[in-house]
């Protein structure tokens, strides 16, 4: 292997963008991420900074804990959002199972070159999972046999391990490496919405009850317009994010990903139990949310290494005991199943 002067992220195929020297990734719909940032930051700014009487008001009239809890929850939500949106979700590297060109059986000495655009059909590869035979899908973009529970994201154009869904508002896929931070983000986001709604409403109610002379909606709306705005906005926002949180709590306890749940719902006669169920809701929850964070497989900041131009045979066995040989000639690879 010899190293080049180019880093992997600079030549990475796929519909994603790298920044800060390959440390962070994002997809292409920047506008949606801008909207999400706005929805999170603007109420927070309104709640703390612009309305200069509000936080002292909470501190003196209600309790000092309220602004502190708000600040902590807001920082946790914001950092979870960044860690979900800018992190590699578990992208699987490409070209691990290249197929040979169709004309690979042509004699090398005949002088006829194989057509590099016509590749052989990938042979079926099966694995045994809990006693059942499952066929692994071959991804023709990434040229790999996808492991179970992985899927190819059409927006990012990458295969992602333990693929959940592509979140347009975070402009990234949700996969194995960032599902926990995504879950924390939606839970704390819901809590933040409910919190802002409750205390904005409390502010309005206390203004209403404290001043008997000014018990008119119009007067209160003039005195505390931002509280009114925040009450309405956070109340409306509770519904979508609350639904999302409830949905993810449900699928986490059921032991399925969003992608698998949509596939199950799409079938006319869905199967009874998901394959990767651990038996109890609690166990499923722990396994989904508390998995260790695996290392990024795409080695973004490492230098690109090219294999030396040698002729290589690659031998592999699937779980049924079938042997495959793969022949690599320079940059081409051919695959021929063997007698077992």
């Amino acid at each position, binding site marked *: 292997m010899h190293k080049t002067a180019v880093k992997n992220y600079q030549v990475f195929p796929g519909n994603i963008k790298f920044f800060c020297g390959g440390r962070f990734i994002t997809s292409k719909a920047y506008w949606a991420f801008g909207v999400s940032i706005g929805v999170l930051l603007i109420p927070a700014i309104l709640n703390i900074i612009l309305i200069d009487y509000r936080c002292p008001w909470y501190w003196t009239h209600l309790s000092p804990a309220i602004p502190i809890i708000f600040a902590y929850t807001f920082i946790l939500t914001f*950092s979870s959002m960044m860690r979900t949106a800018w992190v590699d979700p578990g992208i699987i590297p490409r070209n691990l199972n290249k197929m040979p060109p169709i004309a690979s059986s042509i004699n090398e000495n005949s002088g006829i070159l194989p057509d590099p655009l016509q590749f052989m059909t990938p042979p079926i590869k099966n694995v045994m999972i*809990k006693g059942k035979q499952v066929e692994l899908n071959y991804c023709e973009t990434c040229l790999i046999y996808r492991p179970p529970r992985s899927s190819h994201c059409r927006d990012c154009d990458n295969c992602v391990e333990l693929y959940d869904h592509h979140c347009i508002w975070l402009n990234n896929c949700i996969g194995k490496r960032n599902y926990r931070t995504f879950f924390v983000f939606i839970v704390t986001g819901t809590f933040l919405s409910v919190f802002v709604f409750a205390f904005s409403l409390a502010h309005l109610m206390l203004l209403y009850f404290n001043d008997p002379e000014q018990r008119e909606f119009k007067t209160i709306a003039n005195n505390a317009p931002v509280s009114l705005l925040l009450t309405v906005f956070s109340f409306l926002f509770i519904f979508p994010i609350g639904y999302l949180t409830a949905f993810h709590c449900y699928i986490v306890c059921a032991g399925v990903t969003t992608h698998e749940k949509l596939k199950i719902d799409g079938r006319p006669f869905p199967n009874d139990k998901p394959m990767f169920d651990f038996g109890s809701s609690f166990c499923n929850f722990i396994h989904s*949310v508390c998995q*260790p964070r695996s290392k990024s497989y795409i080695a973004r900041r490492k230098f690109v290494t090219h294999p030396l131009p040698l002729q290589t045979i690659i*031998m592999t066995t699937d779980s049924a005991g079938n042997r495959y040989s793969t022949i690599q000639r320079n940059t081409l690879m051919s695959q021929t199943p063997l007698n077992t």
Partner: protein
Amino acid sequence: MTVRTPGNQQRRSMTPHILVPISQGLVMCVRVERDYSKGDGITKFQTVFPPELEGRIQHDKLLHTVETLNAILLQAETLTFRHVFDNIMECLTIYTWPLLFPSKYQKALDHLRQFVETQNKEVYNPLGMEITSPVRVAFLYLEIKIFERNEAS
């Protein structure tokens, strides 16, 4: 899910073919595939001795390598109270906990890397082989490269 193939070719199942004999001076890669049989999400490699390595390495040495890798990964990925505690603290401390206390998984990956380097140095390189670290291929397989000298030259 069916795979659309170019030219609508029919998917072929495993039909036997004869291996074309390869002359000396070539490099062979043998892959030990993943074992998904337990279905619990823990990374594990098959403990089957590939026939292509017959005569090149003793069975117990290769199986020792694979079984040790499996043991390291089992210990790293099995969820224990420590994992759950680390994850909860990571969330509560706004992701500053791993800076102070490196996770068990990260330590296990470092251990795995050192083990592969040691095995290469002590066992595989003297026999003209090399194990590639499975991290770069997303733990899809364990690849053993066989280097042969070209005796004709």
